[in-house]
């Protein structure tokens, strides 16, 4: 098969799985769901491998989706190293997670069980469409469809009110992002009269291209171009921020933890929330020229990284700690692509997918063993009872903290090193500073999570006295990810200044080569960062297990409240948007729509009725008669006037 057929097959396999499960799934034996659900994802993974091994690339157009004047949208898929890289992460990590879900969701009844895998397959399809799309319209289609799958899966337990509300919140906030993307596409289309990536990028990077209504010398071109590009880049960034839960459109992600844990692992850690990073990477020709928007990406990323890490310190729900940690780590990726270190960002995307999926799934095993209790204060002492899960979790934790030789060290330190060593760039140095502080906080909150849950004595409130380890269908994917989180980073050891850089080499054809090299200074800084973060990880033991030190919060109670309320973002948004919107709607209906817009009409009507009944021989109330007379009169009047007009 050629590249085009393979790419289409890759895309359509999960769609076919979803259709099958949606149509007949719950009427068939459960084993069908168990095979089809993860099976199609693995099949897609194999197709992706085929593309990877075959070094496939191409921009394949299948048919014209719509043609309207100069607005011509083909359905085309872009196969290049970036999309293959993303597909490997999506289907590889996705396959592991969906397989894990076979065990995790076993308690559900048959209809819900196949419904779950339908949604998961829809998600994989949508995410693949997002990364394979070769034009802005299908990017938006994929973009919205992953949001939809996320909506379905957050609200999977739809009888829970909190889940339903969380799902709606996620959907609406993502639509805000979609609108940003749509408007961004409008800007690009009206400027460059193209809607495919190839068409737009060719005109952006072509120094001889001149947009209509502009006077084109080279210097003028840049002057006329850049406001447009900045606008487009900022609008696309709105989409990226909403999807990746970055400030200020982040409030949906913690609530999204209402969904089942495999969903959190797949959508809200490993794949969907990293779509914003993909977007900036894919749009790098735009961001390379739009310097302000590009800087904004880095700033948003750095601030979110610090902001989310600080909230993670006080969370007690294990999944919410992981959710804030995800926001924080995606902040690092934004930081990386924001300073132009694209391949470092994508390397962290991959290693984060490994260790964060690992953490979520290990946490899922714990939650499973603890009868759905998610409060870490009620765990304690699980290390002896759930050794396999606990050690796996520890691997994910130290990877997150960034300890040699785990994957997280190499990817995170490469980002920080790139920021530290970027020449002549104050902004890069500032975001490095923020990233450095965040790394230390990460060490601390990860330590707190690990020690609270697994070390010490069992909490007296623990729901299960003697928990059981999860079944092997749930353990094996965890082990695989633990292995990847341990050795996966070795494919790119540039953070230490030597060794291979497989990811950067692979992606260089799609996102270019990072134009600067680090030196020995940032390797030393990296080692220092690791040691400090590791020490803070250990310090959490004395705070939360032996309680040798007083908790920091007793010294700053106000600050703790601020963190516990998540800087009051939910409250502010409620007061600023949700309630005013409802109030405006209510006010509009009661005080404008009914009395004014309708009132004027009714008053006129009543006045007509009154005068008509005065003239009429019949009783008022037979209003319809007047209407008929009116109607007949209209016709007669028409004919009469026509006669007059022409004679």
């Amino acid at each position, binding site marked *: 098969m050629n590249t085009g057929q393979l790419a289409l097959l890759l895309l359509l396999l999960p769609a076919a799985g979803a259709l099958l499960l949606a149509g007949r799934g719950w009427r068939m034996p459960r084993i069908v769901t168990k095979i089809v659900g993860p099976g199609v994802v693995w099949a897609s993974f194999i197709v992706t491998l085929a593309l990877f091994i075959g070094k496939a690339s191409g921009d394949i157009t299948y048919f014209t989706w719509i043609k309207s004047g100069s607005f011509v949208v083909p359905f085309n898929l872009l196969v290049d190293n970036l999309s293959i890289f993303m597909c490997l992460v999506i289907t590889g990590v996705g396959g592991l997670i969906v397989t894990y879900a076979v065990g995790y969701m076993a308690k559900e009844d048959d209809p819900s069980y196949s419904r779950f895998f339908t949604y998961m397959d829809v998600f994989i399809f949508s995410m693949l469409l997002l990364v394979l799309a070769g034009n802005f319209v299908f990017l*938006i289609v994929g973009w919205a469809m992953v949001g*939809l799958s996320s909506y379905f899966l957050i609200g999977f337990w*739809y*009888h829970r009110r909190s889940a339903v509300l969380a799902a709606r919140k996620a959907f609406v906030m993502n*639509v805000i992002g979609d609108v940003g993307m749509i*408007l961004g596409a409008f800007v690009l289309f009206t400027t460059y009269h193209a809607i495919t990536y190839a068409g737009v990028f060719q005109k952006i990077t072509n120094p001889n291209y001149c947009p209509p209504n502009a006077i084109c010398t080279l210097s003028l071109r840049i002057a006329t171009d850049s406001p447009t590009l900045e606008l487009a880049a900022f609008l696309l960034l709105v989409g990226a921020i909403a999807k990746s839960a970055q400030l200020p459109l982040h409030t949906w992600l913690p609530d999204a933890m209402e969904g089942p844990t495999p969903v959190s692992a797949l959508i809200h850690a490993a794949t969907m929330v990293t779509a914003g990073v993909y977007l900036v990477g894919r749009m790098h020709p735009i961001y390379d020229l739009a310097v302000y928007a590009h800087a904004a990406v880095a700033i948003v990323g750095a601030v979110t990284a610090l902001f989310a890490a600080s909230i993670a310190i006080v969370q007690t729900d294990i999944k919410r700690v992981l959710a804030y940690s995800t926001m924080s780590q995606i902040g690092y990726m934004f930081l990386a692509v924001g300073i132009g270190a694209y391949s470092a960002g994508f390397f962290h995307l991959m290693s984060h997918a490994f260790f964060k999926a690992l953490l979520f799934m290990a946490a899922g095993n714990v939650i499973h063993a603890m009868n759905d209790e998610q409060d870490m204060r009620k765990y304690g002492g699980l290390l002896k009872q759930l050794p396999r899960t606990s050690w796996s979790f520890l691997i994910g934790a130290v990877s997150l903290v960034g300890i040699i030789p785990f994957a997280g060290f190499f990817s995170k330190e490469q980002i920080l090193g790139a920021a530290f060593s970027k020449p002549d760039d104050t902004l890069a140095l500032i975001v490095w500073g923020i990233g450095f502080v965040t790394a230390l906080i990460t060490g601390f909150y990860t330590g707190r999570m690990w020690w609270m849950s697994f070390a010490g004595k069992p909490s007296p409130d623990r729901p299960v006295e003697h928990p059981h380890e999860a079944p092997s269908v749930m353990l094996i994917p965890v082990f695989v990810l633990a292995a990847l989180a341990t050795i996966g980073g070795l494919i790119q050891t540039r953070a230490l200044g030597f060794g291979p850089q497989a990811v950067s080499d692979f992606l260089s054809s799609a996102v270019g080569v990072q134009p600067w090299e680090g030196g020995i200074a940032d390797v030393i800084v990296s080692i220092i960062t690791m040691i400090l973060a590791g020490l803070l990880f250990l310090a959490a033991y004395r705070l939360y297990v032996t309680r040798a030190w007083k908790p920091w919060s007793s010294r700053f109670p106000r600050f703790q409240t601020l963190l516990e309320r998540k800087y009051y973002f939910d409250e502010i948004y409620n007061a600023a948007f949700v309630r005013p919107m409802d109030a405006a709607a209510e006010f509009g209906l009661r005080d404008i*729509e009914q009395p004014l*817009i309708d009132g004027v*009409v009714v008053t006129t009507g009543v006045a007509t009725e009154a005068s008509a009944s005065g003239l009429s021989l019949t009783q008022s109330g037979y209003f319809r008669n007047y209407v008929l007379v009116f109607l007949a009169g209209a016709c007669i009047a028409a004919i009469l006037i026509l*006669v007059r007009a022409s004679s």
Partner: protein
Amino acid sequence: MTLTIIWLTPLIGGVLIAFMPPHWSKLMAAITAIFTLGIAAAVALTFDPSAHSYQFTEEIPWIPQYAIFYRLGVDGISIWLVVLNALLTVIAVLATPVSMRNANRFLGLILAMGSGLAGVFMAIDLVLFYVFWEAMLIPAYFLLWLFGEGERPGRAAVKFVLYTLAGSLLMLVGVIGEYVATGQHTFDLATLATIPPSPAIQFGLFFVFALAFAIKTPLFPFHSWLPDAYLAAPTPMLITFAGVMGKAGAYGFLRIAIPLFPNPVLWWDWRWVIPVLAVAAIIWGALMAIAQRDMKLLVAYSSVSHMGFIVLGIFALNVQGQQGAVLQMVNHGIIVPALFLMVAWIADRAGTRDRSALGGLGARMPVMAGLFIVVVLAALGLPGLNSFVGEFMTLLGAWQRTPVLAVLGAIGLVLAPVYMLRLFQGTMQGEPVIRKPMTDIETGQLALLTPLILLMFVLGLYPNVLTQLMSALGQAGLAR
């Protein structure tokens, strides 16, 4: 003759069926409607996309001394509305319960209304257009008056008819005014488009036509007949009433107001006033839908919001906007009947239309819930389903005219999931409120819904099937 058959068949059929025994009437009405749909589909399939003029034209002198001709014709815009009208008439007929009192009269009137609507979309003579425009009002009025639901259906009927009549009488003045002002003794739309009167006269004539169309569409702030009328209308009637009749107003803008009065500027430029009202309709309709608890009213107001997109696209005055508007007319014509049907079925089972008094129905009617979410997602413009294409194109068109319009219109995109998901989640999800047993969707109901849902996917995945016939739109001088 083909086009004459399309409007005459349902009219004759309707008159005959009205006097048939009720238990026969549904079968006969279905045959009539399906036959009409077949003819309309045949016209669409044999339509030549490369010809940039009216096709299947018929021309018979009617009142020759006043240059009034019986002129019919279709182009890439109207053909889809004719097909949509024929399709929805079939569904409306099939959705009518046989047990309904006076079902024969009801079906006769539904067919007659479909006949008038078809005529509006096919007429290319201004007087003929006006005659069909008035004619479709009569069956609508009787349907509302005789078969309306609620406490005072008569009141809603009168309000609807008076409101629209006020507009269309003004339009009659406009028709005559146009005849006099152009002074060429013709009512032929194609000819009239080539001889616009002076801008000042255009300004006045545009106003009277636009008012009639704005009321019919309805456009903010002329929409207050709509909630009452939709609330009173029985569900089978709503399929064509909400699905097609509103489009007649939007179609009027596109077919009459813009081509005949390309430069309606005196004290101000009407071509800026209308899109501003359209944006107001988008936002206002959405806000009113958010405030509604009655599911039927919620859908009614969502309709106001969606019609705003259509008018906005038309007044983008460029190819993308206007083709998007036509797409959106078809899309909305597919989505709104499905919404009204499902809301009615859910309300039937639950015994209330108040969305806040419902909840958790999804567990007891999983198939209904699954279909309902598809329809709801189509209505809120999910990319991949049909409405997205239309909204994207209308907003793209508006952006090209002036970005402010598109940005404000996009607020409607953000508000749509708020009310649409409240509708879905309020009824299907959460804790069950009503404890009584409920049945899932019936086979007959499923059969009614299936074509609509299939179209939502087909037009979402391959909208070019519609736009490829609209190539004329860019070139025939409509988009001036």
